């Protein structure tokens, strides 16, 4: 396929997946059942993985599936099923302060738009971008970004130790 054709196909794909993601995100907050909300969240996260594939970022896409769908969502479902997941609709799901979420969401959206616009402006991805291979990613992580990587792993370690301390009874 010619580059221009590919670009059109990519755009159609992007908007299709984006529409599904937006619909899924709405259902997450409007559905009347915790498990349904979690499953709609799976749709949103899988959509994000699909968008990464469209950007030729295979490694990030697969990581998204492994971490978010395979681990985080399973943990979510596990937790809700152990505690309060009922069959059918649940009328107590809505908190009476729900409308406070709207300004927070709008503020977050505005911050993201401003930050992205500021950082990249009308910079465009090269249309002939080759697939970013895993070696380049690891060279970056273990080269210039080694210090942040270490810092992140210490945060995770601290969280793990904290969880163990909280969970232990003796």
């Amino acid at each position, binding site marked *: 396929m010619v580059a221009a054709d590919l670009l059109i196909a990519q755009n159609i794909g992007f908007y299709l997946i984006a529409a599904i993601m937006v619909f899924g995100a709405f259902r997450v907050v409007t559905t009347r059942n915790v498990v349904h909300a979690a499953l709609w969240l799976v749709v949103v996260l899988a959509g994000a993985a699909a968008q990464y594939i469209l950007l030729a970022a295979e490694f990030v896409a*697969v990581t998204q599936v*492994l971490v978010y769908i395979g681990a985080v969502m*399973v943990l979510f479902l*596990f937790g809700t*099923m152990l505690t309060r997941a009922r069959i059918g*609709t649940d009328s107590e799901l809505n908190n009476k302060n729900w409308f406070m979420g709207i300004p927070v969401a709008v503020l977050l959206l505005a911050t993201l738009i401003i930050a992205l616009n500021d950082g990249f402006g009308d910079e465009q991805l090269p249309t002939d971008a080759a697939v970013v291979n895993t070696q380049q990613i690891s060279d970056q992580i273990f080269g210039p970004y080694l210090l942040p990587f270490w810092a992140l792993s210490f945060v995770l370690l601290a969280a793990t130790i904290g969880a163990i301390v909280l969970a232990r009874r003796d």
Partner: protein
Amino acid sequence: MSSALIAADLAYWAQSLLRVLGGLVAVLLPAGTVVYLFLFKMMSFMQSRLGPMEAGPYGSMQLFAEVGKWLQKEDIVPANAQPEARIFKMAPLIVLASTFLLVVVVPFGPDAWFTDFEVGIFYALAVSSVSVLGILIAGWSSANKYSLLGGLRAAGQLIAYELPMVLAVVGVVIQAGTMNLQQIVVAQNAGSMFGWNGVGNPYILTQFVAFIIFMISVQAELTQTPFDMPIAESELVSGYMTEYSGFRFLIFFIGEFATAGVFAMIASVLFLGGWGVPFAWFGWTDMDSIDNWMNVVGPLILFTKMIVLVFFIMWVRFSFPRFREDQLQRFAWKILIPVSLVNIMVTAVLKVAF
């Protein structure tokens, strides 16, 4: 890469159709073989009985009879599960979908692959964890305490054993220097041990610890005995599958044994040289010099290796009693994960040293 086996230049839709058909064969053929050869016949022989004998010679048509029986049954949704009927019906499909996603990256020959994915093995580990979702919601939407317990047990077990599996694979990836399954095959068959290339360099020799950990984790991921707490029939009736009947039960059943076959294929690609024979036998050096007939022989070689590995999985399944839940978790977190971490460290040090 050598020239294509079929010289014809197929249209995109024709290629896609061929791939879908190939995927069906690659999932259903191992599943059928595994069920007939091991579940029907080997288990019977180990228990001093004959197994199915009536349908076809030596009962070889039994499988078709069983599938026919299941397809005729009514598709039942329990009364309490009615509010969640849609999720209840969707769950087995998610489990089977994960199997089909898994087979996509397995290479069957130098040109016989569905997709040549750069991060192949990483992708396989990621999509195999999607089946947990299906199992969890199957257990929950059945509106049944036993099913829910089975689903929760399955989730806890599958998460615990996914880690050692990923860590075991890291050893192979370090040694091969790539995550692409096709290149892992080439690295093993084109390799040599101390200058001798008679059998290539299958990683089962250098990564034996990783191989054992991988196979134990596969056993647990497939919820085969001794790791079958999620469907323990003496405690939980049939765990998350209790309420399923007809073709939805059939889908769970196919999913279980097809995944066994596909995992065995992935294990043989990682540790036994996959579709390849040692390249030195025929004077090949790399992908370009491989003869075309390997596209036909390669799948057969892979299939043979798969049968051997599934034989071991089933042998263990029919021989050992079930673990207790706490023993199972302790085994994963306190033995398998530390051992695989040490394996990664040793592999990395040796990789740099040599």
